[in-house]
């Protein structure tokens, strides 16, 4: 997908006004953020200043795809729709960050919401805090976009002090139709303990595809590795036989050769 740092496509009038105001306020050192106090202090300690909360959203109509009743298969139309919608939301958030002159976005949350008023609609929301390096060191992703990361402020600080930096969130998904079992199969298993290889294959393959796609995206972004991978399973109202598997994590690259961390000590926290 093409990326234009100056683009405000899809951002409503109020959004543009907000960005404009935020940019003016930036010179006075004012910012908004959804960081906690600890996260704020650690992000600053890592050499970054928060600039403002950035959001990208996309309400997407998810098309219909006919599935074969008795067939395990990927619903590629739905897979692409879900992926594209997330990509739109992420891109808009990155563009907003660029408007603020940010190097990247930390603490990104990527959510899918459904509303009663739209049966085939889903809202994809990406939200995070735009940050900029104080000394102007380059921290962008290789493709020129601001870096994104779903790591917390604490994790961000820890990662940087260990000689790594995030390049971008990487994701992969797969919408899969699980076959219905025929009557003959049902009679064969009645009253018996046994594994169901066809169901196992369906769930296994779907997860495998989602993870493989995420891995490919990480390789494309030039990441050395992916940390904090989460695997979500949801049916998004398609009925119980159609499931989306969504894998998301943060790709990281080294910023120096040694990654030694000081030997940790055992501690007792004084929090409850």
């Amino acid at each position: 997908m093409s990326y234009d740092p100056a683009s405000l496509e899809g951002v409503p009038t109020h959004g543009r006004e907000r960005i404009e105001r935020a940019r003016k306020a930036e010179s006075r050192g004012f910012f908004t953020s959804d960081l906690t106090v600890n996260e704020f202090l650690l992000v600053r300690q890592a050499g970054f200043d928060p600039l403002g909360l950035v959001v990208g959203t996309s309400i997407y109509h998810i098309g219909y795809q006919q599935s074969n009743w008795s067939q395990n298969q990927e619903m590629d139309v739905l897979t692409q729709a879900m992926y594209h919608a997330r990509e739109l939301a992420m891109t808009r958030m990155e563009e907003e960050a660029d408007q603020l002159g940010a190097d990247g976005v930390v603490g990104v949350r990527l959510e899918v919401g459904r509303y009663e008023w739209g049966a085939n609609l889903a809202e994809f929301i990406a939200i995070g805090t735009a940050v900029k390096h104080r000394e102007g060191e380059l921290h962008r992703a290789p493709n020129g976009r601001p870096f994104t990361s779903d790591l917390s402020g604490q994790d961000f600080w820890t990662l940087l002090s260990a000689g790594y930096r995030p390049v971008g969130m990487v994701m992969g998904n797969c919408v899969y139709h699980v076959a219905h079992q025929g009557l003959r199969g049902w009679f064969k298993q009645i009253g018996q303990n046994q594994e169901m290889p066809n169901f196992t294959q369906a769930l296994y393959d779907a997860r495998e595809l989602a993870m493989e796609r995420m891995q490919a995206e990480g390789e494309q972004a030039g990441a050395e590795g992916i940390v904090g991978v989460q695997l979500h399973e949801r049916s998004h109202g398609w009925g119980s036989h159609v499931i989306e598997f969504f894998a998301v994590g943060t790709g990281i690259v080294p910023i120096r050769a040694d990654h030694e961390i000081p030997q940790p000590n055992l501690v007792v926290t004084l929090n409850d």
Partner: protein
Amino acid sequence: MPLFGRKSGDEKQQGDDQRAAQEQALRDQQASIDSLAAGGLPTQATRRLEETRKHPGMFTSDLSVDEFLLVKEAGFQPITQVMGSSVYHVGFQRMMGGSRWAGFGSQELTMVSGAMNHARALALGRLDQEARLAGADAVVGVRVTRGEYDWAANQIEFQTIGTAVRLTGREPASEPTLTNLSGQDFWKLLRAGYAPRGIVAATSVFYVAASWVTQNATNWLGGVYNQELQDFTAGLYQARASAMGQVRRQAAETRAGGIVGMVIERHEREVELDTGGGSRTDMIFTFHVMGTAITPIPGDHPAPNPEFVVPMS
């Protein structure tokens, strides 16, 4: 433009390609199902892991940043996420004694616990096979989740997922060691001089028929007195003893010195019965237990002295 109903050469070629791809996908699917039926891995997973082993460029992991750094500190390098899954059909439990549920005391529902234990073993076995393919020394942070789906009556899914790691600069071990400990616990354990030996896990499901005493105690008349329901207490103890006994035997087989990181889940379900002229309430107790068997590493491992801190997280 081609005439109605007749395809140009290109279109025909395209159609043929598409059909061939579909047939290939179906063949792959069947091969996967056959492999799974024999307790193996689906073809897609095997392919991905062989590829990862041949071209070790990038790692994937569901380790948090802290876990990632600690696992590295302990001398390990993450390779890839590995997983296993098994969807399992639970058979119908035939009860000893005459009519369904009635007329007998407590007993283990072996059909149900057997199904859970076998499904979990299959899912963990596949995770182990994936780790072997990836050339791992260990799998850390293994999570075992149970799922049930609307589309599958009487079926359960056991899913396992974890991060395969290998010792930096050494030939991989012949058998990867599985552990459900987090990266933090893994590091602490190694530092304190213990090595994980593997995951131990068991499920037991017990049916307890309400005795006369219990029935009287729980009806409107008996409700006045305080008294222990001894049959339910005993059933609970039996279920727990059975599950714990199984994990203890598993740990003994690996010659472990102990079990840590124990996760115990308990569920109970009431069964309402019509006894003809009345009704009674029986109970089904389920215990799931899982932990990591550990063994001491020979040598001197001084215990570190903890400091006091106020954390920033």
